[in-house]
């Protein structure tokens, strides 16, 4: 079934979103966001796959070797770096929220504080 990898990416995306919507803990929510984002890695790599292809690195392979798409692999690397930085920033925000409001449950953070 040739669309299965694409569908897996969609499934990971929806599972992550489900976790975000039902989350009762912001640390858990940040983890769910990372899961949601990882669906894009699967989708990108699935788009770039070539049956029987090897890694697009010619250190050992001959110059005419059959390789998978290097463009999506570079995009995935960018994706991972941005994902990691976003996770770090969000976790820093959660640390400060916990200090100021004493809770990390998003449902209990609705009150306004001047």
């Amino acid at each position, binding site marked *: 079934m040739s669309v299965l990898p*694409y569908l897996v990416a*969609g499934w990971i995306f929806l599972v992550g979103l489900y976790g975000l919507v039902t989350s009762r803990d912001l640390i858990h929510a940040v983890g769910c966001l990372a899961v949601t984002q990882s669906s894009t890695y699967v989708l990108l790599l699935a788009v770039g796959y070539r049956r029987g292809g090897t890694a*697009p690195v010619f250190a050992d392979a001959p110059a005419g070797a059959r*390789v998978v798409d290097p*463009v999506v692999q570079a995009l995935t690397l960018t994706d991972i770096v941005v994902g990691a930085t976003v996770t770090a920033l969000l976790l*820093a925000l959660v640390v400060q929220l916990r*200090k100021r409001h004493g809770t990390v449950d998003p449902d209990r953070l609705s009150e306004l504080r001047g």
Partner: protein
Amino acid sequence: MTRRGRLRLFLLAALVLAAGYAVACLDLPPFGGDRHPYGDRAVHAALARRTANAVASVNFDQRAMDTLGEETILFAAVLGAVVLLRRTAGEARTEPEPARVSAGVRRLGLALLPVALLVGLYVVAHGNVTPGGGFQGGVVVATALHLLYVAADYRALERIRPVSRYELGDAAGEFAYTMTGVCTALAGPAFLANVLPLGTFRALASAGTVVLLNAAVGMEVACGVVVLLATFLDQAVEIADAPGGPRSADGAPEEEPT
């Protein structure tokens, strides 16, 4: 909105999204197919510039401008985390306690530290030839230093990790990347164009500017991750609420950990 109502709304939206996505997937090129017009051109360009690692060629040569943006995101995120997690008034800094570590863990950690550090530097240096590069190798270098935290204790880690130097290193990496771009613009056709001699295919000195940009990114990522981990570790190990609650503003001057 109640939790139940929110879940219902999500399930409805997820159903619509899933159906639309599934239909869209059926129209995508088949998985594993032979048509990769961008990939073929990128591989061709990588080989023409004698870069054995085609992914590095895409990142640091063909899309070098985008990688500058990516690096800036990383820089801004580290800066943001440092600002968000700085010690606020009313928080006291406690000296970390010496920790007892079993002899086996200590020996293994200290033996692995130089090996891990070397592997990280190897991965950065060979980014143009073999899988890896500045981003991956930088993270390996940064985590290698933290083996000292596992093998000894937090005070030992702080001795080899003066955070202000690593903050400077982070900025220097970003600066080096930009300056490489400015120099290539002055010397050749465009910002971040690959103007250096291309060297020998598959050799360590090949691929022109890719080597320099890789090193700059490796430096920035290694220093950035060290600073990032330091700010989080400080929260966990050193910063404690002052007696009298977290809101008592005493404004004590920041102390440099020794």
